[in-house]
C-alpha cells in the first residue's frame, strides 16, 4: 500500500455578526483520511465567562459518506473550567464526533455572546491549518469589514501554518471596525495637546546630546514596568504627575520615562513631538495606535527615541518598532514617517574560542561571547526573569554536550553596554579520529547549532526580527605529542541555521565573517 495523505478541507466556515454582541460560527469539515479522523474528530471551543462571554446553541453532527446524519447528543458535550483563578475563569465546550470514518463530514454551529458588546476592532481569521473552500463573514449595517493579506478572501483559501520567524501579518484576516469617527488630523491634534499638557510642568534639564539624555533616562530612572522583583506591577509606586517628579523620584513607567526624555530634550533646545507606531495608516482610529515614541526634529526629518524600553543601546528603537510607520503629532498636523531599521553592525555577536586540543580528541579552553544591540537587549530581558541557576542552565543548553564551568556574565543590568559571557569549556570527542590522525573541525560554534528551519515542509519565508551579524574566531593549539601539519581556512559556508531555501532573504539580513573557520589536521609525532 502506497501511503498518500490527502488534507482534510474546510468546506464552509461562516461567521455571522449580530449587534450588539453575537457571533454565530458555522463550520463544515470534510475528513478524507484516518489521520484526519484522528486529528479533527474532537473539537474544543474556548470561551471566557470572565470577559462576559457565553456560548449558546451548540449543534454538532457527523454526516456519514452515505448521507446519514448523527447529531452529537447534549450529554456528550462537556463544559469544562480549564483554568479558574480567583474571579478569572476560562472554560471550554468540547465534544467528540461519533462514528467517524474517512469520507465523513463533521459540522458544528454555535453562537458566541459578548455581554459587553463586540470587542471592536474585531479580527477574524480567514485561514486555518486546513484549506478553506468557502469563507463567509456576514457583517451587519453599521460596521465595516477590512480584508487583509488575501487576494480572494472568500473562496479557496490555502492552509496557513504557524512557523517560527515567519513575517508578521501573513495570515489572511478580516478586521471589523466601526466607521471612522475621527481623522488622523483630529487624533494627532488630540495627542499633541495631551503631550503638551503633560510636559507643561516644572522644568527639568540636564546636559548632553540626545543620545546622552536617552541613556540618562534609562540609567537614572528605574523602569517600574520592568522591575525584576515586581513584574505584575503589584504594589506599584505612586504615578509621577510630571516629568520633574519622575526626575526627582528616580522611578517611572515607560510613558513617564519617555515624557522625561522629551522634557530634557526640549530644555536642551530641541523641537520635540509625540509619536506613535501606527498599525494601519489607512484606518484613522485610536485602536490602530501602538507603542509610543518621542520624535525630535532634525534638519532632514526626525530622530526617534523610546527610552521607556530598557536595555536599548544608542540609536536603537525596540525591534518591534523598526521599519514600521509612525504618526508624528505635530502642531501642523499628522506626519507619517517610516521608522529606521538597525544595521547588522549594531546587533553584533562576537564569539571567541581559545582551545587546547587533547590527544584523546577532546578540547578544553576559554570562550568569550559578546552581544551588542538587540542581541544584548534580548539576553538582558530574558535574564530578568531567570535566577542565576536558570541563566547557567540556559547557557548550558546553548552548548549541548559540553562541560561548562567558571561562568562570568557581565553587564546584564547596564542598559547600553554589551553583554559579555566568559566561561571555560571542555568538549569530549570533539575531533574526528582515524587510526593515525586527529581532525579538529575549526567550526567550533557550529557544532552546537541545530538546524533551525528544516527545509522540508516550510511554507513561509523566514524573517529575522532584526538584522544581525555573527563573527567567530577560533584558535586551536595542538596537543603535546602532536604536530599541526596543516590548517587552512575553509571555503565560506552558511551559518547552520541559515535557511538554505531562502538564501536571498538570509543574505539580506545577515552578514558573515569567515575568519577562523578551519579544519586542523594533526598527526602523532613519531
Amino acid at each position, binding site marked *: *500500500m*502506497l*501511503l498518500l*495523505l490527502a488534507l482534510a478541507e474546510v468546506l464552509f466556515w461562516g461567521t455571522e455578526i449580530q449587534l450588539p454582541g453575537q457571533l454565530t460560527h458555522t463550520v463544515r469539515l470534510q475528513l478524507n483520511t*484516518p*489521520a484526519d*479522523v*484522528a486529528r479533527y*474528530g*474532537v473539537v474544543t471551543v474556548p470561551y471566557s465567562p470572565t470577559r462576559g462571554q457565553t456560548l449558546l446553541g451548540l449543534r454538532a453532527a457527523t454526516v456519514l459518506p452515505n448521507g446519514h446524519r448523527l447529531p452529537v447528543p447534549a450529554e456528550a458535550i*462537556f463544559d*469544562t*473550567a*480549564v*483554568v*479558574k*483563578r*480567583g*474571579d478569572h475563569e476560562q472554560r471550554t465546550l*468540547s*465534544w*467528540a464526533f*461519533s*462514528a*467517524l*470514518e474517512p469520507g465523513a463530514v463533521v459540522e458544528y454551529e454555535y453562537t458566541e455572546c459578548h455581554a459587553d458588546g463586540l470587542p471592536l476592532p474585531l479580527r477574524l481569521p480567514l485561514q486555518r491549518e486546513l484549506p478553506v473552500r468557502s469563507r463567509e463573514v456576514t457583517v451587519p449595517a453599521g460596521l465595516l469589514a477590512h480584508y487583509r493579506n488575501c487576494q480572494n478572501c472568500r473562496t479557496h483559501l490555502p492552509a496557513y501554518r504557524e512557523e517560527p520567524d515567519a513575517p508578521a501579518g501573513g495570515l489572511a484576516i478580516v478586521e471589523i471596525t466601526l466607521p471612522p469617527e475621527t481623522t488622523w488630523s483630529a487624533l494627532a491634534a488630540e495627542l499633541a495637546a495631551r503631550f503638551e499638557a503633560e510636559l507643561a510642568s516644572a522644568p527639568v534639564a540636564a546636559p548632553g546630546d540626545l543620545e546622552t539624555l536617552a541613556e540618562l533616562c534609562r540609567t537614572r530612572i528605574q523602569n517600574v514596568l520592568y522591575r525584576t522583583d515586581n513584574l505584575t506591577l503589584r504594589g506599584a509606586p505612586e504615578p509621577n504627575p510630571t516629568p520633574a517628579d519622575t526626575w526627582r523620584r528616580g522611578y517611572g513607567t515607560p510613558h513617564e520615562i519617555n515624557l522625561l526624555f522629551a522634557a530634557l530634550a526640549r530644555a536642551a533646545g530641541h523641537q520635540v513631538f509625540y509619536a506613535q507606531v501606527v498599525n494601519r495608516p489607512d484606518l484613522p482610529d485610536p485602536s490602530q495606535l501602538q507603542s509610543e515614541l518621542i520624535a525630535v526634529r532634525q534638519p532632514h526629518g526626525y530622530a526617534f527615541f523610546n527610552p521607556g524600553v530598557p536595555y536599548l543601546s544608542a540609536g536603537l528603537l525596540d525591534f518591534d518598532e523598526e521599519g514600521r510607520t509612525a504618526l508624528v503629532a505635530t502642531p501642523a498636523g499628522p506626519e507619517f514617517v517610516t521608522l529606521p531599521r538597525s544595521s547588522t553592525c549594531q546587533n553584533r555577536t562576537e564569539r571567541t574560542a581559545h582551545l587546547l586540543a587533547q590527544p584523546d580528541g577532546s578540547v578544553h579552553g576559554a570562550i568569550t561571547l559578546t552581544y551588542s544591540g538587540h542581541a544584548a537587549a534580548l539576553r538582558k530581558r530574558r535574564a530578568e526573569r531567570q*535566577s*542565576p*541557576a*536558570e541563566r547557567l542552565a540556559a547557557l548550558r543548553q546553548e552548548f549541548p554536550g559540553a562541560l561548562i564551568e567558571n561562568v562570568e556574565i557581565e553587564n546584564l543590568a547596564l542598559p547600553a553596554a554589551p553583554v559579555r559571557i566568559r566561561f571555560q569549556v571542555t568538549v569530549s*570527542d570533539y575531533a*574526528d*579520529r*582515524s*587510526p*593515525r*590522525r586527529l*581532525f579538529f*573541525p575549526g567550526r567550533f560554534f557550529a557544532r552546537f547549532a*541545530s*538546524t533551525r528551519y*528544516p*527545509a*522540508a*515542509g516550510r511554507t513561509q519565508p523566514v524573517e529575522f526580527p532584526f538584522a544581525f551579524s555573527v563573527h567567530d574566531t577560533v584558535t586551536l593549539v595542538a596537543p603535546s605529542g602532536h604536530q599541526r*601539519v*596543516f*590548517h*587552512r581556512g*575553509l571555503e565560506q*559556508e552558511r551559518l547552520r541555521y541559515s535557511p538554505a531555501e531562502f538564501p536571498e532573504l538570509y543574505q539580506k539580513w545577515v552578514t558573515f565573517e569567515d575568519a577562523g573557520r578551519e*579544519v*586542523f*589536521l594533526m598527526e602523532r609525532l613519531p
Partner: protein
Amino acid sequence: MLALLLLTSWFQEVASAASPMGADAHVLLREESVIMDQTGRQTITTRGVVRILTPAGAHHARAGVAYDSAAGQLLEFRAWVQAPGGEADEIDPQEFVDRPLAPAELHSPLRQRQIEANAPPGSVFFYQSTVVAPAAFPQVEFEFQESELPVHLSRFRLSAPAGWEVQAISFGSSPHRAGNTWELRQLPARPAQLPRLALTLLPNQPALPRFATWSDVAGWLATRSDAAAQPTPPVIAQAESLTAGLTTPQQRIQALAAYVQGLRYVAINQNLGQGGGFTPAPAATVLSRGYGDCKDKATLLRALLRAVNINSWLVATNSSDRARVRPEWPSPRVFNHAIIAIEAPSGLLYFDPSDPHHALGGLPPALQGAPALFLRSGASLAMTPEQAGAIERQITLRLEHDGRVSGKILETAHGSAAAATRALVAAEMYDSYLSSRLGIQVTQLKIQDSFPEDGLHMYVEYEQAAPVATAGPLHVWKPLLPWLELPGPVAVNETVTIELHPRWIVEEMPEPVQSASFSGAWFLEDGKLIINRQLRPSSAGVIPVERLPIVLRQER
C-alpha cells in the same frame, strides 16, 4: 493569631530544623493523614512545610491537591509564606489556580488546585489541604518523598474503622511504625528509589472488596468489565460483517483487531468514585460512538471476538511506569492501561488496540516484558512477552568528484521499528524527521506498509551538499548516517556500499569496532567501500561509529 498558631502547630514542630548544605530547598514536613470510614470513603489531610534556601529553589514554594469534583470534595486548601524573621502571611485564595488533572481527556471529574508562592531565599512556605475522596476499594498509598529535595520529616497516619485489618508494605525504605503512623526522617535528596508505603485494608464487611491476592484483584476487575463485553445484536452484526468470507480464526482475529484499532482513542471518565476508571463502556456504546479509551476499545474487541466464538481477556498493565506494579502489593491502583490477550490457533496473542501503529501480535516497547494481570478469576500476575524489532537496511552511496554525495536507502522494518516509522508517517513528519536527524536532503521517499500485517518497506533517495571536509592534502568523510533513536530492543543489520569517483583514493579507514551487542567493519573491495554494522537487541548503547572518518586523497 491563636487560631493560626493552633492550626500550624505542625509547622512549629519542624520550623527550627536545620537544613543541609547544598540544597536549593528543604522539605521540613511532608505529612498525610487519612481517615477511612465504613464505606471506604477517605478524608485526606495533607500538610507540607518547605524552606527555600536559594533563588534557584524558589520554585519549590508550590503545592497542589487533586480531587474528584463530582463524587468528592475539596474541603480546604490554605497556604502561607513566612518571610525571614517575619510572621506568616496567608496567601490570598484568589491566587490559587484550579485546572483539570488530565487535560488530554475529553472529560474527567478529576481536578487539581495549585498554588505557586513568591518565596525568597530564607522564607518558609507551608500549606494544608483536606479532601474527601470516595474510594471503590480500601487501599492507600503514600510517597514519603516526592521530589529531588531532602526531607526532614515525612509522616503518614491512618485511621481505619475498628476491626479492619491493616496490611502495610513499604518500598525503598523501612519507615518507623507506631500504631497506624509511619515515619521517615532525614531523607537525602534524590534517592535511588523513592520511599513509598502501600496499605491494604481488609474490611470486616462484604460490601467492600478485599485484595489479599492478585487473584482477588483480577476477579474484582473482571466483575467490573465482563458485562460490557457481552455481544449485543449490533455487535454481532458488526462482527459478522467484518469477518464475512474469512475462513480461518487468524483472519477473523486480524479483521476484528484492525477494525477496533482504527477507532479513535477518546477518554471520557465518569463515576470514578464508584470504580468508573476500571469500568469500560458497553461494547455496543463504543461501537455506535466509534471511539473509546483503552478499556473501551479492548472490551469492544472482546465482544466482537466473542461474537465469532474466539476467546479473549482484558489484561491490565502500566504503560508509563512498570515498576509501580509490585508482586507483593496486589492492587488495581498500579494499573493505568488495558490491552487484550486473544486465544489464537498459534497461541496467545497480545494486542493493544489503543496503539494505532503496532500490528496484531506486537506490543509497544513500554508494554513488552512488563507485569500484566489477566482479568479472569484465579489469575496471577504474569509478564507480557518481549518482542525485539528488526531493521534490515541497505545503503548505496556515490561520492562525486566534487565531494557531493547521493545516496539510496532501502529498508525493511518489523515490529516496534516499523511502528515507530509508521507513527512519524501518520504525523506527516517523516521526511522532515529524516532530514533534520540525518542532516540530509531527502529527494524521494516511498513507503510500502503492510499494515495491519507486520512489515514496513522504505525507499529513500537523498543528497548531501558538502560532507567532505578538506584538511590540506587530505579529505575527511564520515559516510555513515547516525542511527535514529531505536524504539526499544531492535536488531539492526546495515550494509553500506560506496562507489567512489575515480579521483578519490582511500588513504585510511577506521579499524573494526566490536562489543557484546554491536559490530562494525570496513572493507575495500574492487574499488568499492563496503561497511557493515550490526546491532543485536540489547539495552546496551550503540557505539557511534558514524563519527569515525574515512581519510581520502584526491588524484591530481
